[in-house]
C-alpha cells in the first residue's frame, strides 16, 4: 500500500513539473499558433543558467531564481517572439516547425559550448526538509513543486480571466487580425505570452534538474512529456493540460514501479510518455480542412530531364575520380555524404514537395539498415526489401494520424523516433543493448563491390537514379497532385481526392527512400548500431536539408555534403563542437522561412553567369547547347549538382 502512495506522490511531483512546462507551451501555441518544439530546450538552457548563477557564481538561491525566472527567461521569450517567431503562425506549419527545430538544435549546441560537459549537481530546494506521511517520506522539493504548479494554474487563470491583457490573449486566440482592428496589440500579447511561456519552461527545467540531472538531452526531451500533456488538452484547454500532465506523471511513476526492469519490456518504462503522446494524438478528433489559407509557394525551378541527366553523369564522373584517388577513410566520408544526401532526397519529396515535416527521418534509415543487416541478403533483392520494410513502417506511422495534418504528423514522428531509440533499436531482436550488427556489401548481378571506392560509386549511382526518379515524379501527375495538396487541401478534397491514403503513401515512399539510404549505409560501414540512427541525428538532417534547399535535388546534394562535414569539423576542433550545432540551428532559424535555401542562391548565380558569359563561352566551345527561349527559362535552369564553380565552367 505504501509503495502505491509513495509512487503516486512521486508521479504527482513529476506531473506537476510537466504541467508547468505544458501550460507554457499551450499559452504560446494558442496565442501565436507557433508550436514551440524548442520549449524543452529553453527549459534546459534556463536550468543551466540557474546552475551557473547559483552554483558557479555562488549567488543566493532566491536571487538566482529571480534573475532566471524574472529577467533572463522572459527577456529571451520576448526577444524570440520579436525576432524569430513573429508572423510564423500565419504561414505553413512546416516553416514554423523547421524554425523551432532550429532553435532546439541551436540551444543544445549553445549550451554545450557555454557549459562544456562535466559533472554538475543541482541541489533540490530545502534539501534537508521533508514530511513523513505514514511510511512515505515526501521531500520539501516535491511539495514545493506540487504547490508551485497549483500557483501557476491559479495565476494563469487570473491572468486570462481577470485582466485586460488576458482578455486580449484569449481574443487573439480566435482572431489576431480582428483584435488589431479593435485596437488590441497582438504583437504585445504575443510577446507577453512568449515571455511567460519561456519562464514556465525555465521553472519546470529548474524544478526537474535535481531529479533528472543537468543533461542537455534529457531535460530537452522531457518536453515530449509536456507535448503529450498539452495534446491531452487539445493544445487549448489549460485545465485538461494539467489533468493530462498529472496523469502522465503518475502513469510514468507506476511504470517505473511495476513494469519489469529487465528483459524485453525494460525499455517500455522509458517510452511511456511517447506512447502516451501517440495515444492522445490518435484520439484527437478529425481535423477540419482549413479554408482560405495562404497558398502558392515559389519553389526552385525544375530542371529539364536532359540537364538533370547531364549533371548526374558529371557527379558520377567526379565520384569515380575520387574513388580512384582517395584513401579508404576519406571515401567512407564520401559514402556517408551520399547516404545523407539520399535521406535528404526523401525530405525533398516529403517536405519540399509535400509540405509535411518528419522529425525522425534518420530513424527510417535505421529501419532500412536494420532490415538489410538482418535479411543478410547483400544483393539488390535484399536492398529493395529493406527499403520496402522501411516504407511499410513509415506508412504505419502515418496511418494513425490519417485524419490529422501537419503538426500532429510531425509530433507523431517525434514520438516514433523516441520509441525506436529507446525500445526497438535497443531490443534483442534488433541491434541489442549497445550492440552492433554486421552487414555485407552489395553484390549486383554477381559482381561484388568489396572495395570502398567501388561501393561508394554504387552509392552515387543510387543517389543519381533516385534523384532522377524524384524529378520525373515531380514532372508527372503525382508531382502536380503533391503540389496541389500542399497549396489547397480543401480544394483537393472537394475535387474528390482522398488525401488520407495519398498522405500515407507519400510518407511510406519517403520512408522507403530513407530506408534505401540506410541499407546502403549499412553495407558501407560493415558494422552498424543503434547509435548510428539516433533521433537527434534526424534534426540536423532536417535543418541542413532546409538550409541548403529542401525543394531541389541540388539542395539535397549540398546538404548531404554539409552534414557529412559537420562531425569532421567537430573532431578537428573539439572545443567548437557545440558552436557548430549552434550555428546550424540558428542558421536554420534565419533561413527556415525560405525552403528553397542556399540552392536557390546558386541557381540565381548560375542564371546571372549564364546571362553574362553564356554567349562568350558558347562561342569558344560551340558544342554546348543553346539556352532555351526566355519563356521557358523558369522551368529550365541550371541545377548544379556539385558546386558553384561548376556552373561557371558549364555555362
Amino acid at each position, binding site marked *: 500500500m505504501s509503495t502505491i502512495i509513495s509512487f503516486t506522490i512521486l508521479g504527482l511531483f513529476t506531473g506537476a513539473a510537466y504541467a508547468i512546462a505544458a501550460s507554457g507551451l499551450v499559452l504560446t501555441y494558442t496565442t501565436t499558433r507557433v508550436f514551440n518544439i524548442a520549449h524543452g530546450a529553453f527549459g534546459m538552457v534556463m536550468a543551466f543558467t540557474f546552475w551557473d548563477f547559483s552554483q558557479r557564481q555562488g549567488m543566493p538561491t532566491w536571487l538566482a531564481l529571480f534573475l532566471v525566472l524574472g529577467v533572463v527567461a522572459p527577456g529571451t521569450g520576448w526577444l524570440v517572439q520579436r525576432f524569430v517567431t513573429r508572423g510564423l503562425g500565419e504561414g505553413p506549419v512546416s516553416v514554423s516547425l523547421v524554425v523551432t527545430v532550429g532553435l532546439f538544435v541551436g540551444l543544445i549546441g549553445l549550451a554545450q559550448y557555454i557549459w562544456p560537459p562535466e559533472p554538475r549537481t543541482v541541489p533540490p530546494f530545502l534539501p534537508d526538509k521533508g514530511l513523513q506521511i505514514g511510511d512515505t517520506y515526501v521531500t520539501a522539493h516535491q511539495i514545493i513543486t506540487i504547490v508551485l504548479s497549483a500557483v501557476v494554474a491559479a495565476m494563469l487563470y487570473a491572468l486570462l480571466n481577470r485582466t485586460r491583457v488576458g482578455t486580449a490573449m484569449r481574443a487573439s486566440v480566435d482572431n489576431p487580425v480582428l483584435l488589431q482592428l479593435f485596437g488590441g496589440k497582438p504583437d504585445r500579447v504575443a510577446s507577453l505570452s512568449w515571455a511567460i511561456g519561456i519562464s514556465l519552461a525555465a521553472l519546470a527545467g529548474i524544478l526537474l534538474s535535481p531529479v533528472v540531472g543537468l543533461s542537455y538531452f534529457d531535460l530537452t526531451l522531457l518536453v515530449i512529456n509536456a507535448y503529450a500533456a498539452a495534446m491531452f488538452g487539445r493544445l487549448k484547454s489549460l485545465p485538461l493540460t494539467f489533468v493530462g500532465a498529472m496523469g502522465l506523471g503518475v502513469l510514468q511513476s507506476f511504470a517505473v514501479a511495476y513494469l519489469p526492469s529487465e528483459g524485453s519490456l525494460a525499455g517500455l518504462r522509458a517510452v511511456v510518455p511517447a506512447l502516451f503522446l501517440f495515444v492522445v494524438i490518435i484520439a484527437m478528433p478529425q481535423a*477540419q*480542412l482549413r*479554408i*482560405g489559407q495562404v*497558398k*502558392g*509557394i*515559389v*519553389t526552385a525551378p525544375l530542371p529539364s530531364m536532359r540537364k538533370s541527366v547531364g549533371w548526374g553523369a558529371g557527379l558520377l564522373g567526379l565520384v569515380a575520380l575520387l574513388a580512384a584517388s582517395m584513401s579508404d577513410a576519406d571515401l567512407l566520408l564520401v559514402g556517408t555524404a551520399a547516404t545523407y544526401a539520399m535521406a535528404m532526397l526523401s525530405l525533398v519529396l516529403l517536405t519540399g514537395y509535400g509540405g509535411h515535416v518528419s522529425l525522425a527521418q534518420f530513424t527510417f534509415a535505421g529501419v532500412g539498415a536494420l532490415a538489410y543487416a538482418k535479411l543478410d541478403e547483400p544483393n539488390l533483392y535484399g536492398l529493395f526489401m529493406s527499403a520496402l520494410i522501411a516504407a511499410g513502417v513509415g506508412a504505419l506511422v502515418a496511418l494513425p494520424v490519417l485524419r490529422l495534418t501537419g503538426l500532429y504528423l510531425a509530433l507523431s514522428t517525434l514520438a516514433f523516433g523516441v520509441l525506436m531509440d529507446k525500445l526497438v533499436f535497443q531490443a534483442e531482436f534488433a541491434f541489442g543493448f549497445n550492440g552492433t550488427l554486421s552487414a555485407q556489401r552489395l553484390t549486383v548481378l554477381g559482381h561484388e563491390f568489396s572495395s570502398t571506392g567501388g561501393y561508394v560509386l554504387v552509392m552515387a549511382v543510387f543517389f543519381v537514379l533516385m534523384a532522377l526518379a524524384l524529378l520525373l515524379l515531380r514532372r*508527372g*501527375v*503525382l508531382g*502536380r*497532385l503533391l*503540389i*496541389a495538396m*500542399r*497549396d*489547397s487541401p*480543401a*480544394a*483537393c*478534397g*472537394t*475535387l*474528390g*481526392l*482522398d*488525401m488520407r491514403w495519398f498522405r500515407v503513401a507519400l510518407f511510406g515512399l519517403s520512408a522507403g527512400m530513407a530506408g534505401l539510404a540506410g541499407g546502403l549505409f549499412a553495407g558501407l560501414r560493415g558494422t552498424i548500431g543503434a547509435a548510428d540512427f539516433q533521433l537527434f541525428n534526424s534534426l540536423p538532417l532536417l535543418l541542413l536539408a532546409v538550409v541548403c534547399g529542401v525543394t531541389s535535388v541540388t539542395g539535397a546534394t549540398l546538404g548531404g555534403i554539409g552534414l557529412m562535414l559537420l562531425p569532421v569539423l567537430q573532431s578537428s576542433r573539439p572545443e567548437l563542437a557545440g558552436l557548430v550545432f549552434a550555428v546550424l540551428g540558428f542558421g536554420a532559424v534565419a533561413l527556415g522561412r525560405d525552403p528553397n535555401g542556399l540552392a536557390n542562391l546558386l541557381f540565381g548565380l548560375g542564371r546571372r553567369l549564364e546571362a553574362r558569359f553564356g554567349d562568350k563561352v558558347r562561342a569558344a566551345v560551340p558544342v554546348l547547347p543553346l539556352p532555351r527561349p526566355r519563356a521557358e527559362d523558369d522551368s529550365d535552369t541550371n541545377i548544379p549538382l556539385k558546386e558553384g564553380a561548376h556552373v561557371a565552367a558549364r555555362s
Partner: protein
Amino acid sequence: MSLLEVEDVVVRFGGVTAVDHAGFTAEAGRITGLIGPNGAGKTTCFNVITGLQKPNEGRIRFDGRTITRLPVHRRSRRGMGRTFQRLEAFGSLTVRDNVRVARDIHRGLAGLVRPASADVDGLLERVGIAAYADERADSIPTGVARLLELARCLAGQPQLLLLDEPSSGLDETETQAFGELLAALAAEGRAIVMVEHDMDLVMSVCDELHVLDFGRVIASGPPALIRADPNVQRAYLGYSDVPDADLTQELEAVR
C-alpha cells in the same frame, strides 16, 4: 425528386447559430440562388453540403441518398463540385495544371497511368480564360481565378455545381457572358446552386431563390416573387415600396 435536399440543418459555432434549421432543394437543369446579407450562413451551408463542416443537426440528401456523414472526397465522387468564396486555386501551379489536377483526380488510378490533357484546354476555352493557361494561378486577377475554379470543378464532371460568389471580380460584360455560360451549363442537365450578391445576375439567371437571414431561410420562390416579398426587402434587398405592417405597428407604439 430533387437532386440535392438540405433538410433542417443547424450549425453552431460556440454560442452563435450560423445556420438555423435551414432547408432548401436544388433540381437538375435549374439554377438555384442562395442570397442574403453577409454572415447569413450561405457559405456555411455550402461547407455543410460539401462536407467541410459537420452540421450539429439536420440531413443532406444527394441523388436520393443521405450523405450527411460522408467524407468530403466521397461526396465529390458522387458528383458534386464547388468553388470557394475565398479562393482556393493551387497557387504554385499554372492555370492549365490546376485543371489538369482536377482531371487527374477525377480519372483516378487510370489517370496516373495514362495522363491526357485533351479537353483541359477545351474547359479553359469554355469558361473563357484560355489566354491565361500558362500563368501561375497566384498571379492572375480574382475574376479569372474564380472562373478557373469553375473550370477546375467542371473537370470532375459534376451533376451539382456549388458556386460561391462566382461573379465577384468580373466586370459588366464578363458578368453577362458568365450568366450565359451558367444558363448553358444548367441546360446540359446540371443543377447549379449559387451564392451571389450581384442582384441583376441573380434575378436574370436563377430559376429559384432562397433567402437566408441569420441562418434561417426566410423566403423561397422564383425571383419575381422574392423581389416583391417585404420580409426579404427589409432583411436584404435594402429597399421597401410596400409598407411593412409589423414595422408600422412598432413605430406607432414608439410614438
